[in-house]
């Protein structure tokens, strides 16, 4: 196929990439955003909406922490407390974390990284955004109706009889699920069918691998959640009693179905974070990953094994000793794949030319917090220990180390790393580094004491607590204020930078990854001529080839088939 009939050139020959209007500048009306099918604009829409969700969920968290300043009532009553921790979990998991990296950064970056003009189904992409908004509105309706008090897990039989707004909440989650599935289908098809000429699977940037792994999980796990929460909704609304033990139902079966989704969902949250880190580390070390294959295959390994570990949430729910042992061992396999990644990232830095910028600071935070969270994960996957720690603050601290310490820090790394690409402007480096340090300090102060609390016997989700826990509770609460402050500071300087930030240039980090081959911000079709990626995405031994220009690259003879990987 020749370039001219490939349709890749919507810009007349001879036009410089710099003269092409950017995806932001091409139209500025509300309509042009609301009806856009440009994957980059949809990514930005997701980004703004998920940031809103992050601050909403964060607000709930701050209220919860303030409530725990004293052992009894501080500012809210017990029923409000129950609804607050439920809505905190629901908003953070389904409105923020699951779409945070895949739907926002994945949408923006995957087509560019594989040299495509857009995702495979651009209109489905826009539809998935509006499905997400619709689901989110249902969750907000539930909130307006007083919220839901079942915990984010909707364990039956309580969830079938809770007096709170269970039905609109599960309806919202059901709808959000279809948005996730649509995005997953779109990414799988995009990565399979839209890669540019010469781009084999093992020449894709590693972020694309993580998006592929996460899409597979989204497509296969989310429908099981959709059906499980629908039944909970029907049990609550119409009294169908499918999980009601007094009518022959089995509440533990609900737990199986819920965790069949919700454990893989943990990898929906962490795999994209790992993908971000796999981009950040080579760029700021100016060094190819120590092993591309190790990172790519361990991504697939986590995606696969993630489906076989759900039972470790149910060690005390009455599953057999043999099942528990099997699930425990399988869970530990995930730690092996994760460790492969961690060691590969650290080795990548060796011999590199390290540039200390905000995204790399977040990588260091990620490394420390993720390893700590991962090790405690192996600990709670051990049955005998889990019996002691189950449903205590230890578990709360463990998954916050992974979800916040892992996913949120990687999300912040992504936000800073790709900010110049998305906006064309730089953020203030000093502020970036300062708030990254504040995030780390605030985070550790919030959640490290919770390990100690849990180990000492503080159960999760309790409103009142033993006064001897108060010192650690207060430290945790003060830490949450630091974390909240860091988030507000970050949001503030990023918003200011949108308008007054220094112009970034196309490749401010001197990266080799493919999204930096185009302008910042990119034009609507990402590249002004069909991109030919001669270098690998991590080929730091060669000079950066620079921005391809239409009319030059397009007429050049086709590049020789590149080596399998750099």
């Amino acid at each position, binding site marked *: 196929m020749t370039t001219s009939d490939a349709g890749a050139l919507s810009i007349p020959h001879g036009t410089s990439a710099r003269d092409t209007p950017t995806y932001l500048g091409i139209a500025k009306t509300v309509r042009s955003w609301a009806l856009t099918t440009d994957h980059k604009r949809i990514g930005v829409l997701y980004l703004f909406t998920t940031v809103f969700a992050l601050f909403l969920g964060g607000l709930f968290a701050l209220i919860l922490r303030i409530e725990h300043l004293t052992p009894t009532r501080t500012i809210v009553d017990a029923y409000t407390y129950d609804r607050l921790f439920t809505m905190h979990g629901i908003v953070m998991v389904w409105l923020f974390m699951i779409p945070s990296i895949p739907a926002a950064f994945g949408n923006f970056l995957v087509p560019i990284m594989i040299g495509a003009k857009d995702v495979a189904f*651009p209109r489905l992409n826009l539809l998935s955004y509006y499905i997400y908004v619709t689901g989110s509105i249902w969750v907000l309706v539930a909130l307006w109706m007083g919220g839901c008090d079942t915990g984010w897990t909707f364990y039956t039989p309580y969830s079938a009889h809770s007096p709170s707004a269970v039905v609109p909440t599960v309806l919202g989650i059901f709808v959000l699920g279809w948005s996730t599935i649509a995005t997953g289908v779109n990414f799988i098809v995009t990565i399979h*069918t*839209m890669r540019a000429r010469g781009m084999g699977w093992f020449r894709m940037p590693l972020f694309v691998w993580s998006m592929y792994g996460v899409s597979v999980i989204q497509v296969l796990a989310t429908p099981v959640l959709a059906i499980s929460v629908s039944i909970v909704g029907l049990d609550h609304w119409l009294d169908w009693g499918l999980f009601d033990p007094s009518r022959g139902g089995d509440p533990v079966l609900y737990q199986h179905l819920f965790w069949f989704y919700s454990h893989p969902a943990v990898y929906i949250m962490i795999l994209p974070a790992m993908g971000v880190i796999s981009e950040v580390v080579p760029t700021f070390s100016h060094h190819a990953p120590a092993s591309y294959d190790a990172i790519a295959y361990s991504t697939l390994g986590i995606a696969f094994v993630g489906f076989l570990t759900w039972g470790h949430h149910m060690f005390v729910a009455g599953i057999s000793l043999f099942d528990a042992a099997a699930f425990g061992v399988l869970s530990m396999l995930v730690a092996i794949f994760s460790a492969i990644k961690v060691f590969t990232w650290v080795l990548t830095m060796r011999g590199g030319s390290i540039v200390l910028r905000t995204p790399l600071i977040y990588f260091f935070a990620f490394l420390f917090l993720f390893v700590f969270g991962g090790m405690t994960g192996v600990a709670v996957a051990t049955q005998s220990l889990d019996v002691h720690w189950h449903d205590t603050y230890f578990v709360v601290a463990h998954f916050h180390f992974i979800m916040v310490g892992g996913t949120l820090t990687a999300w912040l790394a992504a936000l800073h790393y790709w900010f110049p690409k998305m906006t064309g402007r730089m953020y203030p480096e000093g502020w970036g580094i300062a708030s990254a340090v504040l995030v780390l300090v605030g985070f550790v102060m919030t959640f490290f004491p919770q390990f100690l609390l849990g180990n000492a016997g503080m159960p999760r989700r309790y409103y009142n607590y033993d006064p001897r826990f108060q010192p650690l509770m207060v430290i945790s609460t003060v830490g949450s204020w630091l974390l909240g402050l860091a988030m507000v500071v970050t949001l503030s300087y990023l918003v200011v930078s949108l308008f007054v930030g220094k112009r970034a240039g196309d490749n401010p980090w001197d990266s080799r990854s493919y999204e930096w081959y185009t302008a910042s911000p990119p034009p609507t079709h990402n590249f002004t001529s069909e991109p030919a990626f001669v270098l690998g995405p991590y080929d730091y031994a060669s000079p950066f080839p620079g921005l391809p220009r239409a009319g030059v690259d397009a007429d050049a003879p086709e590049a020789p088939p590149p080596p399998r990987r750099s």
Partner: protein
Amino acid sequence: MDESVAESFESLDKQAHAVRLGMWVFLASEILFFSGLFALYAAYRTEHPGGFAIGVENNTIVHGSINTAVLLTSSYTVALAVHELRRGRSRRAVTLLAVTLALGACFLGIKAAEYAEHFTRGIYPGGHGRFFDTHAQAGTKMFFTLYFCMTGLHAVHVMVGMIVLAVLLGRVGRGRVVAASSYALAAGAIYWHFVDLVWIFLWPLFYLVPGSGR
């Protein structure tokens, strides 16, 4: 460039490949969607074999079996429609699609009559209704609740499939989908076959096999 190729694709071939792959990946998701309910069925039938046997014996086997024939025939006509469109015979394809839609509507009609019969006998989901005064086993209640859940979800899929095929019928009729772009109709047909296939599992589970539970 052919106007039927979306802007994001380089060629019709790539677009056809993407649409087919997208449909198969989506169907993988759909299978998991139903499998949550099949898992419930398996678990509860194992737990209450006797109650499930009573449920199967009291179900409307005539309606269910006629519906199986109706749906299988509709799968045949939609497959023929794809075949005719690929050979360029759009008018025949339109006729066959119309027959498929009619069979789909017929299925839904029989299904509605069947539900009506359940309701007159006092069988409602959740173990509600006077039927369960005389058949009070937990398993029988569970059987009929699952019956309404699974056949109801399936009926929703029939409706969605009919909407998809109706849109495609319009596009084939107006010449927007032709032999070269028959992949679009093929993708819709795959979805219809999937809906049919789910029923092939529901039929024995709810109508045919009471098992030796009692």
